[in-house]
Each structure stands twice: as structure tokens, then as C-alpha cells.
């Protein structure tokens, strides 16, 4: 590339520095009755393995949509219209935006999973919470469950007696057959017959249940055996969120996306959940992408921070730098808007723009006290102005985003 200043985070290349995921020039649009919403407009983001990446921004900034793109699950009427999302595993790269549904589904819930903002809404009200956690296990860790079932059933057959022993031996036969050849035709036939298919599902579900109870205990849920059989509405907000977290962690994901998991919880509960998440991240060794609008939580949880505004990334830096020396006017505004005793409350004038007709050039310029003429005409590119510190602002560099058909 001809430019001297690096314009891409981690531009050194995909294999360096344990990059887990790269988002390159992502563009997402929503086709609604009121018009086309240009929700995400050229986002570049890297996720480093093992880190906690915080994504901050107001409602409507595109934080959630960006993370949905990370599993290629943009809900209709949305669509990814440009850019790529690349996921790295064992040195190989998977371009998520080009994969088919079948393969993507194998990743979702298993290697990339998600924690939701409203736990009550994220849980299906008519199913037991334990079953909902088990669902992911039964989809992604089936072989493991079959293996365990085989072992416990063998034991039962040896030491058991009476009718239980008979059924156990049938179940064992089915399980062994499934382990040997998952595509066995007879097996598939058996699974279609209402009562007989229990020979397959009962043992497997029993193992899944054991695993879920273990998981719930890890979440700090008391009496997990009983909680397994409860329904979402019977649990408090904090408990519900622990269930959601348990579901997300059930298959040892490499990347965990947490979408404002504590926003809807009481402050005391929030503190517990944050502690829990930190501990779990340590134990499971996953990478965490944490979305929030609360700078306090960012300070608590994040290693690096990306600041988003109206579908673009304004600034990326490690957490200390963001707090000590924020560069982008929006980041500064966010920090000044944190209520603190002894200081006058300042808010950022104006409101979040309508993304059907977004502002021209830099999307923040209408609300920016330092806006210049060129901010109205051109979009600033996200550029590394110090090592590890990227900013998209003409105050600090002169690199423009190239529109199609435009020269450098």
C-alpha cells in the first residue's frame, strides 16, 4: 500500500498476534417500509484472542448489528451488503460472510455464542430453563454425550436389575450404534418412530442434564437440580441472566459476545454478574466482546475499547488510553457525560442521526464542536495515529474513506 500511515488495525496480516476475528469494511443495510437504513457503514474491527474488547456507543450506534455480523446472523429485513468477516481457527481462516447456513450453524452456539440484554426475552417462556441450556449441548456436543451415555449405560447394565436393566441394554445398543456410524439408516428410521426414539434421546438427555447441572453450579446458581426444571418466569432477573450465560458457555465457545448483559438488572445484581463473567472468562479461556453504553462497566471489564457512533467506528485503543487521553470528540463527549460529583453535567448536543438519511461525510460532524469544512464532505478513515491507538477524525490525520469510483 502506498500510504505511510497504517490504515488497518493489525494490518500486519492475519496470522500475527492471535487474531481471532477480523471485520473488514462491513456494510449493513436494513430494508424497511420507511426506507433503507444504512446501519453499518464501513466498519473495521479486530478481535484479539483472549482479550476483552469493549464496544461502546449510544443506542442506534450499530454495536449490536456489528456483533450479529460476527456470526453472520443479521435479522431480516437487514442484509450485509459489503465487506467481510473473517474468523481464524487453528491457523486457518473462515470467511463467515461467504459460508453457507449449514456450516455457520455449526459455529453458532459452539464456537461463537451470545449473551443477550434482556434475559427474560431471550428465554422461551414455555420450556424449562434447563432444557434450553441443554439444547445447545445436544446440537453441538452430541458425540460427547453419546460417549458418556455409553459408559454410564454399560455400568447400569452390569450392575442393574429388572426392567431397568432391560431398557438400559436396549438404550446401550442404540447409543453404541450411533457412535459407530452417525449416518446409519436404521438409526435414522428409529428416530422417526415416536416411542422408540426415546431409546436414543433419553440416555443422551440424561447426560446433557448432568452437564447442565454442573454448568449451573458453576454459575453460582443454588440448588441447580431443582432450577433445571423451572420455567423462566419463575426466576429472578439475575438468575435468568445466569441461565443465558450458562447457555452461551455450554459448548466452550472461543468467542463470547455479550450484548449489554447487565443493563436491565439491578445494580447489586449487576456487580455479581460482572464478577461472574470475569471469573468465567478466566476459567473457560474465551475471548469476550462486551457491548455497553456504560463507561463505568467498560472501565471494569475491558482490555481494549472500540467507540462506535452511527454505524461507524470513531476510536479504538486500550482502556487506559481511552480514559486518559481520548482523541475523538465523540469519545471525549462520552467521558464528559459521565455524572461525577463536583463536576457540571455536560451532554453532547443534538441527537443520534436518522440513518435512512445519514449526515454526509463524517457522521458525527453535525454534533461536533470541532467540525471543519472537510468533515462535511469526506469521511475520515480509521487510522493508527499512535501504536495501538486508532482514530477516525480529520483533527488527527488526513486520510479519507475512498468512495467507489473516486481516486486516492
Amino acid at each position: 500500500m502506498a500510504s505511510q500511515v497504517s490504515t488497518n488495525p493489525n494490518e500486519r496480516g492475519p496470522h500475527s498476534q492471535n487474531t481471532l476475528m477480523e471485520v473488514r469494511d462491513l456494510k449493513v443495510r436494513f430494508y424497511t417500509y420507511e426506507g433503507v437504513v444504512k446501519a453499518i457503514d464501513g466498519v473495521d474491527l479486530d478481535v484479539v484472542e483472549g482479550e476483552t474488547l469493549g464496544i461502546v456507543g449510544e443506542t442506534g450506534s450499530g454495536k449490536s448489528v456489528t456483533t450479529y455480523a460476527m456470526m453472520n446472523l443479521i435479522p431480516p429485513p437487514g442484509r450485509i451488503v459489503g465487506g467481510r468477516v473473517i474468523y481464524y481457527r487453528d491457523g486457518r481462516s473462515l470467511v463467515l460472510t461467504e459460508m453457507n447456513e449449514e456450516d455457520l450453524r455449526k459455529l453458532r452456539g459452539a464456537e461463537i455464542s451470545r449473551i443477550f440484554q434482556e434475559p427474560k426475552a431471550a428465554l422461551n417462556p414455555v420450556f424449562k430453563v434447563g432444557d434450553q441450556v441443554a439444547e445447545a449441548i445436544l446440537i453441538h456436543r452430541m458425540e460427547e454425550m453419546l460417549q458418556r451415555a455409553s459408559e454410564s449405560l454399560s455400568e447400569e447394565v452390569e450392575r442393574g436389575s429388572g426392567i431397568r436393566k432391560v431398557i438400559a441394554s436396549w438404550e446401550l445398543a442404540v447409543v453404541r450404534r450411533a457412535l459407530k456410524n452417525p449416518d446409519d439408516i436404521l438409526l435414522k428410521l428409529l428416530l422417526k418412530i415416536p416411542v422408540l426414539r426415546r431409546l436414543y434421546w433419553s440416555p443422551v438427555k440424561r447426560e446433557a442434564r448432568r452437564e447442565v447441572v454442573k454448568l449451573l453450579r458453576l454459575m453460582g446458581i443454588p440448588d441447580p437440580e431443582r432450577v433445571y426444571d423451572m420455567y423462566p418466569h419463575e426466576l429472578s432477573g439475575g438468575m435468568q441472566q445466569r441461565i443465558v450465560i450458562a447457555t452461551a458457555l455450554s459448548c466452550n465457545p472461543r468467542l463470547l459476545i455479550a450484548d449489554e448483559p447487565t443493563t436491565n438488572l439491578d445494580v447489586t445484581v449487576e456487580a455479581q454478574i460482572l464478577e461472574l463473567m470475569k471469573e468465567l472468562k478466566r476459567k473457560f479461556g474465551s475471548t469476550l466482546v462486551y457491548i455497553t453504553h456504560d463507561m463505568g462497566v467498560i472501565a471494569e471489564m475491558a482490555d481494549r475499547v472500540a467507540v462506535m457512533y452511527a454505524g461507524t467506528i470513531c476510536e479504538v485503543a486500550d482502556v487506559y488510553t481511552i480514559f486518559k487521553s481520548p482523541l475523538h470528540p465523540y469519545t471525549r463527549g462520552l467521558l464528559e457525560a459521565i455524572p461525577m460529583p463536583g463536576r457540571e453535567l455536560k451532554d453532547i448536543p443534538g441527537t443520534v442521526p436518522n440513518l435512512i438519511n445519514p449526515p454526509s461525510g463524517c457522521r458525527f460532524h453535525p454534533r461536533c464542536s470541532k467540525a471543519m469544512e472537510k468533515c462535511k464532505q469526506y469521511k475520515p478513515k480509521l487510522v493508527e495515529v499512535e501504536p495501538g491507538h486508532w482514530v477516525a477524525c480529520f483533527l488527527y490525520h488526513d486520510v479519507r474513506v475512498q468512495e467507489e469510483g473516486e481516486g486516492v
Partner: protein
Amino acid sequence: MGGMRTYIIRRLLLIIPTLLGVSLLIFAVSMVFSPEERAALYVTEGSLKAAARIEAIIKKYGLDQPVYVQYFKWLSSVLRGNLGWSKSLNIPVSRAFTELWPASVELAIYAVPLIVLTGIFLGKISAVHRDRLPDHLSRIFAIVGWSLPTFWSAIVLLAVFYGALGIFPPGRLGPEAQSIVHSPGWVEYTGLYTIDAILNRNLFVLVDALRHLFLPVLNLVIVGNAGIMRVMRSSLLEELHKEYVMAARTKGVPEKVVIDKHAMRNALIPVVTLAGIMVANFMTGLVITETVFEFKGLGYWAAHAATQLDFPAVLAFAMFSGIMFVVANLVVDVLYAYLDPRIRLG
């Protein structure tokens, strides 16, 4: 499931006042008539002799006594099975019921499941393929069914399939099958010709009965599934927008399972609550369909009786409909509690 049991008992107790109210309304309407006319309600053999007995009946049942006394006596008489005399058929009302209801039940056995299944199916594909061709077609089908006069669609079906094509005749059975059914060798197990034909191992009667059932059932289904289809559609659309559906997808659940297991389970709940209204609509459809197709069941009798001003018959049928509605709602409430854990535990 202890919560379930108390819930069911509670619901059962609650319908008693409603049933009483139903009987009160019927009673109130019948009070329009003079004591002489009302005495006719209690005459269980029809003849000129009855005229002389009327004075005796008025005395016996206290038809000139205060209203509440009359209501009590009437109610106890009804509960003992004495519903009066149907002059249009010249038999007691209760006998008319027992003789005619198998026909209606037979229609119901085939029509109701079909109505429910087609309604749910059409509603589901409509919601899943929203704003595309299957959706438009289903919605057109639904709104056409909703606007069609039941009696007109019945007539058109009859004109085309019987008048022109001759394949599906009106009535319950053709003349040959009739004679078989009335012959001494035939055992009437249920009164439903299709079931009885199977139990009597008679293929001819079975086919004949099915042929006669086809058009009335078709008519009932065309007119009846619009309501279910619409509720299913809007209900499923609402569920598909909910967060838990998205959550299931992020777990890697296949889309088909997301819809069939997660969304449908929740979406069916409002559909189930429709059952009471569906029963009411079905009874209405029954009256008209049985009349046009000369299918001699309860609906046919009620319509026939109305034109002949056979009040006890119409009254009995109205009460029957009311009770059916209340019972259907009870079943719905129980089913609702089973489907939605929030109801039975909350």
C-alpha cells in the same frame, strides 16, 4: 402437577354460574309465550288429546305461578331429560336429539380436525413466507372464505358436484346403502355410518357414506378455517419477532426447528383460545350446511323446526349450542394451562 388439578376444579366451578345464566336466558325467552303455549312444551305425546291435558299441565307444573317457581320447576324438568315436544317431527325433543345427533357428530369428526389443521397450516406458511406468494394466496383464500355466505357456497358446490358432475350427492346415504343400513343384518354401533360401516365390514356403505360426507365437510372447511388462519398468522408473526427466536438461532438451532419447536409452541396458544368462537361458528355452519345438503342432523332439525315455529325444538338446540360453547371454553382453559406454564404456576 398439583397446580393443574386445583386449576381445573376452579374452572369447573366457574362454569356453573354461566350455565345457569344460559338456562335463565332460554327460560326468559320462553316466558314470552302464554301459559297455554308453554304447556305444550311439557306434552310428550302429540295429539288432540293434548289439548284437554293442557289445563291439567298448567296446574301440575304451576305455569301460572310466580316466575322463580316456574324457573325451578322448568330447570328440574330439563335436568331430568324432559325437553318438551317437537311438533315439526312429532316426537319428544329428547328423542329427536338422540336420533339426530350422530349425523352431526359424524360431520364434526371429519370437519373440525380438517378446519383446525388447514387453518394452522395456511396461517403458518403465510407467516413464514410473509408478503410473498404463499402469503398472498392464503390471505385471499381466507378473506374469500370469510365473506362467502355458507348457504351460497353450499348451493354452488351442490350445483357443480352433484348437478353437473353427479359424484357427490346430498343426504347421508344413497337408496341402496339406506336399505342395507335398515336391514336386520346391520348392527348399529354408533349411528355414524362411516364407523359403523367399518365395524360391519361393509365397504359399499363406507364409500357411499364418504361420498355423501364430502361436500358438507368441504363447505364447512372452506368457511370455517379463515378465523384460525388469521389468528395463526398474526400470532406466529408476532412470535417470530421475539428475542428468544433470535436466541435460538444464535445457539445454532436449524431454522425449521426454530419455527416448529420454539415459535409455534408459543404461537399456538392464542389460536387455542379461539376454540369457543370456532364452536359457535361451527354450529352456525352446521345449521346451514345440513339444511342445504339435506343432511339430517341437529342443524337440519333446528332450521326445519324454526320455519314451523316449533319452539321447543329451537329452544333445545339453542341451549345445546350454549352448553357446547361453555364446555369448549372450559376445555380451552385447561388446554391453555397445559400449554403455557405461566398460567398454571403464576
